[in-house]
């Protein structure tokens, strides 16, 4: 976690890279009580014409938040996330989350920071997995942690 970054419009967030392997999809399925076979069963996916088990799209919501919180530190409170799916991602594909600050407002002792984000498959083709994502986060202006 970097934390404490001074927010400025145009700031590019540190990209978040993750390879979502089968084991990660199984862990996610268990953690969310969603045991749909699309997310781990190779034969089930093949019967439906898919090249492999598909990443549960909601997992990208968690990654969008993680990138923003890693950038702005543990006192950053994410207040909203909006995202749309552009294409499926299959088990074993590396993904990359990119983000850029598009608005900074100062309000009630907080910076309210709006970040536009995108998730792409991190390979030569680079297809878009999640487009038009927008996350809003509030960070206390002093940027300091509360003393324990």
């Amino acid at each position, binding site marked *: *976690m970097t934390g404490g970054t001074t927010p400025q419009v145009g700031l590019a967030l540190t990209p978040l890279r*993750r390879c979502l392997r089968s084991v*990660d999809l199984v*862990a*996610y399925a*268990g*953690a*969310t*009580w*969603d*045991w*749909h*076979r*699309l997310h781990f069963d190779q034969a089930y996916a093949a019967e*439906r014409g898919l090249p492999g088990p598909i990443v549960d*799209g*909601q*997992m990208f*919501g*968690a*990654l969008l*938040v*993680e990138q923003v*919180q*890693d950038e702005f530190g*543990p*006192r950053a*409170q*994410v*207040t*909203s*996330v*909006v*995202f*749309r*799916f552009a294409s*499926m991602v299959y088990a074993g594909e590396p993904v990359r989350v990119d983000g850029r600050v598009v608005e900074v407002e100062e309000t009630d002792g907080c910076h309210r920071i709006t970040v536009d984000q995108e998730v792409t498959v991190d390979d030569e083709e680079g297809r878009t997995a999640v487009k038009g994502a927008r996350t809003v986060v509030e960070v206390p202006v002093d940027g300091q*942690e*509360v*003393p*324990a």
Partner: protein
Amino acid sequence: MTLLTDEVRAYIGRTVRYTAPEALGRSSIRYFARAVGDDNPCYTDDEAAARAGHRDVVAPPTFVCETNQYADGRPDDDGYVGHSWDLPVPEGTRLVRGGHEYEFHAPVHPDVVLDVSWTVEGMEEKTSRSGTSLLLVTSLAEYRDQAGTLLARNRETLIYQEVAT
């Protein structure tokens, strides 16, 4: 093919409510954070959570919008246990996620017992570039704790796509 039949349209405005059988618990929060690879210490460490101003560890914000813990379902043939409307959409479609709009209103702690309501907000039929039908179904989930405090909202769009034959 018409996907938005009167029978399907009748679901607009329908609401269903779930109350979780138990509190979320610390282990489910740690499990989720580990599964998504998020090592923010506020999810697992009391002192880190206190330094960030929390009374207890917190769940990753999207956790309540992603878990099916509250639905207390049994897996269907496909292994799915979460909320579903089981819309009577005509045969010959496949279902994909369109997108989500999450709002987070209050931190989620391990002692939260989720109270979740789902409502069908609207439906829209469109034609794809290739001329097949698409049915967009938008639902709103509201997540509250046992005191009725609003924790989060999740507006979800699902898309039924006509499969070209």
